[in-house]
C-alpha cells in the first residue's frame, strides 16, 4: 500500500511540474504535443493534455495499425455493424443479431495477473451489452511462458483464477479458448478475451449521443484512482525490468463482478424500456473516451460536470476523474423526460446513477466544475479521435529472411524415439476450463476441449429454441507466424474454418486480436503488415467478413519481442442442430481415416519447435480451393451424422490429433501407412482425422471422391495400445498419464 501511494504521489506531482517534458511523461511525442497546440490554437492545460495523451495512445488510437487494418475485408450482406464500434454485429437469422468482440488485456495481466485478467473479462462484457446484446459466452486465448518458470506459473495461475473468479460470478459462461505455454511469452503473457452476445435484431443500439439538452448519466461504480493512464502508461509501452513493472501496478484496475452483474441487468432493462438514446461503456481512457466518443459519433458536443462524478476518495484532481479507468461504469444518454424512469430502474438493481453531463450543439467537449460553472478544459470532441496521429511506420523483413527460409525443418535429424517425442507434445487443458462455468444458460452443446464450441441458438427475447446452433473458436499459432507471418496468419484463419467444419458449421464472421512486439522496430511492423495481408487474403478466399478487432503492440520486454501472434475468433452457424456433433472421442471398432491431402513438411510445426527450437523455413502450401472442399465435405458429413469422431489436424500434426482422440475416449489405436515422423508431425493444412462406422466407410469414401478430396485409411480405433506400424508402439496408459499431467513438457525446452 505504501509503495502504491509513493508511486501515485510521484506520478501526480510529476504532472504538476511545469516542465517541458510533461507531454512526454504522459506518453506523447513532441510532434504530437505540437499538433495538439495547433488544434487548440493555444497551449493545452494539464487536463486537456492528459485527455489527449490517453486518447492518442497506441491502445486507443491504433495510430500505428489503422493504416494497415483498412486492407481487411469487412462487408457481407449479413454484417449489421462492422469494425469501429464497440463490437461487430451480424444477423444470424430468426430475428436474432449476434454481437462479437475480442480484446487483449496483456499488459495488465503481466503485472497483476488476477485483476488484469478479471478486468479483461469485465471490459469485453461491457463492449457487448453496450450494443444492446446480452453477453452469452466468453472465450479466452491465453499464452504464458514455460510452466517450469515460477513467474510464468504465477501468471498462469493468477490469470486463470481471475477469469474464473470474475467470469463465473458475473454470470456469463466461459465456453472455450486455448492455453499455450511457450518461452516466447515469458516476459509478455497474452490474455485475449472474446465475448459473444445476442439480441433481438431490432434492438441494436449504437454508442452515440444526440439531441441537444439530453443528459449524460454515469452508471455503476464510483470513480477512483485505479487505472489512471492504463492505456498510455501500461498498454502502449514496452516492459523493462521487474522493479519498474511493479511500479506500474497502480495502473491496473480492480474488478467487481457483482457490480458488473447488476450493471448488465440494469442496462439491458433500460434498453428494453427504450429509455436510452445511446450508451457507451467506460473502458480504456475512462470518461474522456466515453464522453468524446459518444459526442463525436453523434456529431454533437457535451458539457461534463466533473464535480458530479461520484468518487471513491477525496482530493481527486479533474484529470484523474477524466482519465481514471475504474471498472464497472457506463455512460447512458437519456432524455430529460425519461430520467426519472431510468433512475428508478437503476435503483431497482442498486446501481448508482448520476447526471454528469449534457449534450450540446457545436461539437465542443467542455469539462466544467458544475454544469454551468467554471470551465476547466475545452476541446473539439472529434479531435480526440479523428485528429489522432496516423503513422506509416517503416517496415522491412528480417535481414536474414532468405537464409531463414532456406533453413527448413525437414533437414532436422529424425527423432531417436518417435513415441517419446509424441508424448512430450501432449497436454490436457481441462485443468483450466474445469475452473470456468462453461454450462450456464444451458446452451453449451460442445464445451471447451473440442475443435469448436457449439451453442444452442435461443431467441434472446422469447427464449424459443430456433433448432439451430452457433459455433465459435478462438485460435492462434505463433510458430506458424514466426516462420512466416503472412502465410501463418492465413493458415490460422484456415484452421479456424476447419474447426467450425468439424462441428458442422459454416463461418459467418471473424474478429481478430493482433498481438505483436514493438511497432517502432521495422521488422515488427513488417510482421504486422504481413499478418494483415495474410488475413485479408484468407478472409477473401473464404468469403468471411472481419467485423472487429483489437491490436496489442509493444509486447516487448528487455528488448525481446514475442513471436507474432494474431488470434482469430471465428463465429459460425449450424443450420440444423438436432444432435450433439461427433467430437473427439472414437468408439472401439471405428475405422480411422484422414480426409484431405497428405503432408510431410515440418517447418513451423510444434515438433520442430519443441525438439530443436526451430521456427524457420517455409510453411506448407495452403490451397484455398482444396481447403474449401475439405471443409465443405467435413461439415456435410457431420451434419448427416456419418462420422463417429472427428478432429482437425493442427498443432502437433496427425500424431497429436490421434493421441488426443485416443486419450479422450480411452480407446487405443492400431495404425499403419504413416511412414515417417514427418507424416506424423507435419502440420500441413486442410486435413482432418475421422473415425467412421465400418458399414458407413464406403459411403464416406464415395462422398469424398465426389468432392475431389483424398481419403487415406490409416487404422482402427481399438484396444489398449497406441501403435503405428513401423513407427511407435505405446501402452494407452502412457498416453493417458502424459495427457492428464496437464502441461506439455517439451514446447518449453530451450
Amino acid at each position, binding site marked *: 500500500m505504501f509503495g502504491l501511494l509513493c508511486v501515485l504521489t510521484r506520478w501526480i506531482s510529476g504532472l504538476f511540474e511545469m516542465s517541458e517534458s510533461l507531454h512526454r511523461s504522459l506518453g506523447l511525442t513532441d510532434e504530437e504535443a505540437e499538433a495538439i497546440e495547433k488544434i487548440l490554437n493555444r497551449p493545452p492545460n494539464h487536463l486537456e493534455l492528459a485527455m489527449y495523451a490517453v486518447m492518442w495512445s497506441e491502445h486507443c488510437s491504433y495510430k500505428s495499425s489503422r493504416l494497415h487494418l483498412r486492407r481487411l475485408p469487412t462487408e457481407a450482406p449479413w454484417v449489421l455493424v462492422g469494425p469501429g464500434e464497440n463490437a461487430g454485429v451480424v444477423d444470424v437469422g430468426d430475428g436474432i443479431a449476434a454481437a462479437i468482440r475480442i480484446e487483449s488485456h496483456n499488459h495488465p495481466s503481466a503485472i497483476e495477473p488476477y485483476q488484469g485478467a478479471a478486468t479483461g473479462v469485465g471490459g469485453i462484457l461491457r463492449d457487448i451489452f453496450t450494443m444492446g446484446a446480452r453477453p452469452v459466452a466468453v472465450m479466452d486465448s491465453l499464452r504464458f511462458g514455460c510452466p517450469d518458470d515460477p513467474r510464468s506459473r504465477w501468471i498462469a495461475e493468477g490469470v486463470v483464477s481471475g477469469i474464473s473468479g470474475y467470469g*463465473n460470478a458475473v*454470470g456469463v459462461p466461459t465456453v472455450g479458448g486455448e492455453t499455450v505455454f511457450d518461452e516466447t511469452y515469458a516476459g509478455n503473457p497474452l490474455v485475449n478475451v472474446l465475448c459473444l452476445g445476442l439480441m433481438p435484431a431490432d434492438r441494436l443500439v449504437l454508442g452515440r449521443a444526440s439531441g441537444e439538452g439530453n443528459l449524460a448519466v454515469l452508471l455503476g461504480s464510483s470513480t477512483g484512482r485505479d487505472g489512471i493512464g492504463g492505456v498510455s502508461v501500461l498498454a502502449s509501452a514496452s516492459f523493462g525490468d521487474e522493479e519498474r513493472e511493479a511500479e506500474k501496478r497502480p495502473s491496473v484496475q480492480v474488478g467487481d463482478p*457483482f457490480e458488473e*452483474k447488476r450493471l448488465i441487468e440494469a442496462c439491458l432493462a433500460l434498453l428494453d424500456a427504450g429509455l436510452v438514446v445511446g450508451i457507451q461503456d467506460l473502458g480504456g481512457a475512462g470518461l474522456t473516451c466515453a464522453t468524446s466518443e459518444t459526442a463525436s459519433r453523434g456529431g454533437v458536443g457535451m458539457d461534463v460536470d466533473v464535480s458530479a462524478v461520484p468518487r471513491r476518495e477525496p482530493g481527486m484532481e479533474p484529470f484523474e476523474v477524466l482519465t481514471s479507468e475504474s471498472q464497472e461504469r457506463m455512460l447512458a444518454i437519456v432524455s430529460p423526460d425519461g430520467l426519472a424512469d431510468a433512475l428508478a430502474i437503476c435503483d431497482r*438493481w442498486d446501481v448508482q446513477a448520476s447526471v454528469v453531463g449534457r449534450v450540446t450543439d457545436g461539437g465542443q467537449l467542455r469539462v466544467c466544475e458544475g454544469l454551468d460553472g467554471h470551465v476547466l478544459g475545452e476541446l473539439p470532441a472529434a479531435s480526440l479521435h479523428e485528429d489522432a496521429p496516423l503513422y506509416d511506420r517503416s517496415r522491412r523483413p528480417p535481414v536474414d529472411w532468405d537464409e531463414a527460409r532456406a533453413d527448413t525443418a525437414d533437414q532436422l535429424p529424425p527423432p531417436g524415439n518417435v513415441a517419446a517425442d509424441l508424448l512430450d507434445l501432449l497436454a490436457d487443458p481441462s485443468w483450466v476450463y474445469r*475452473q470456468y462455468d462453461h*454450462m*450456464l*444458460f444451458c446452451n453449451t452443446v460442445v464445451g471447451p476441449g473440442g475443435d469448436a464450441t457449439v451453442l444452442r441458438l435461443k431467441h434472446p427475447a422469447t427464449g424459443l429454441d430456433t433448432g439451430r446452433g452457433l459455433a465459435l473458436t478462438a485460435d492462434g499459432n505463433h510458430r506458424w507466424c514466426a516462420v512466416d507471418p503472412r502465410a501463418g496468419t492465413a493458415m490460422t484463419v484456415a484452421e479456424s474454418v476447419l474447426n467450425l467444419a468439424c462441428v458442422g458449421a459454416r463461418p459467418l464472421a471473424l474478429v481478430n486480436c493482433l498481438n505483436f512486439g514493438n511497432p517502432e522496430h521495422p521488422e515488427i511492423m513488417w510482421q504486422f503488415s504481413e499478418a494483415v495481408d495474410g488475413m485479408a487474403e484468407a478472409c477473401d478466399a473464404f468469403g468471411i467478413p472481419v467485423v472487429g478487432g483489437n491490436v496489442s503492440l509493444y509486447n516487448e520486454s528487455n528488448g525481446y519481442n514475442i513471436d507474432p501472434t494474431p488470434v482469430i475468433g471465428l463465429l459460425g452457424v449450424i443450420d440444423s442442430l438436432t444432435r450433439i456433433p461427433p467430437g473427439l472421442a472414437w468408439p472401439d471398432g471405428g475405422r480411422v481415416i484422414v480426409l484431405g491431402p497428405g503432408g510431410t513438411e515440418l517447418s513451423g510445426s510444434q515438433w520442430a519447435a519443441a525438439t530443436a527450437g526451430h521456427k524457420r523455413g517455409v510453411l506448407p502450401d495452403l490451397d484455398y480451393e482444396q481447403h474449401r472442399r475439405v471443409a465443405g465435405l467435413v461439415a456435410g458429413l457431420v451434419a448427416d451424422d456419418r462420422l463417429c469422431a472427428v478432429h482437425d489436424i493442427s498443432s502437433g500434426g496427425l500424431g497429436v490429433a490421434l493421441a488426443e482422440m485416443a486419450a479422450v475416449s480411452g480407446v487405443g489405436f492400431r495404425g499403419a501407412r504413416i511412414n515417417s515422423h514427418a507424416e506424423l508431425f507435419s502440420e500441413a493444412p486442410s486435413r482432418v482425422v475421422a473415425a467412421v462406422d465400418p458399414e458407413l466407410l464406403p459411403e464416406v469414401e464415395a462422398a469424398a471422391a465426389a468432392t475431389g478430396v483424398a481419403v487415406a485409411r490409416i487404422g482402427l480405433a481399438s484396444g489398449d495400445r497406441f501403435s503405428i506400424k513401423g513407427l511407435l508402439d505405446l501402452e494407452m496408459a502412457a498416453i493417458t498419464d502424459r495427457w492428464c499431467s496437464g502441461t506439455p513438457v517439451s514446447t518449453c525446452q530451450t
Partner: protein
Amino acid sequence: MTAKVGVVVFPGSNCEHDVVEAVDAIGGTGELLWHKDCHLGDVDAVVLPGGFAHGDYLRTGAMARFSPIMAAVACFARDGGPVVGICNGFQILTEAQMLPGALYKNQGLRFLCQPTMLEVESTSSVLTRELVRGDQLNIPINHFEGNYICSDKTLAELRDNNRIVLTYMDNPNGATADIAGICSEGGNVVGLMPHPERAAHPLLGSTDGALLLKGLISGD
C-alpha cells in the same frame, strides 16, 4: 392445472432463467420472484437458483438470507411447501438455517465445473419422490464452495432420518459422507449442489436433471 414454480432472483443470481426453462420444458410453469418482495403469490413450489447472490461477498449466502422474500420462503416451507435450493440456493438455505450444515471451499481449493455421477439415497424428498433408491444420475456441478460439512450429531440425524438425498459416486469436492444433497425433516426443503436444470435437454448430454425437477412439480 400446471404446477407453478417460483424462482427467486437475488441480485447476482444467474441460473434463474435456466431453471424456468427446464421447469417449463417438463410441463410446469416457471415464474421469477424478486428478492425484495415480501410475498410468494400463488406458487406451488419455490426454487432458490444458483449464482452469486449479493456477489457472495462476506460468505456465500450470508447476505441473501436477509432479503425480504426469505421470510416468506421460510413461512411457505413451514407450511410444508416444496422449497429447493440449487448450488448457491443450497448455500442460502444453510445460512438461513432452513437446512443444517454448511458448504466449505472445495478440497482442491479450485472452482469446479464438470459432470458428476450421483446416486439417489433417499426418495422421501420432493425432488426424489419419483425415483428409486440407488438410481444413478449424471448431473453437472459448478461451484467453489460445495464441500458439505456438518457435526457428527447432524450427520447421524441426517442418516437416521433418511435425509441424505443424493451422494456423489466419485466425490469431487471433499464433501462429508459424499453428500451432494440433503432435505429437511419433512422432505419438502431440499438443498443440492449439482444443477438439475443443466441436465434437462438431450443436446446437453443428459436429461437426468429433469427426473428430479419432475418430482418437484408432481405435487401430492
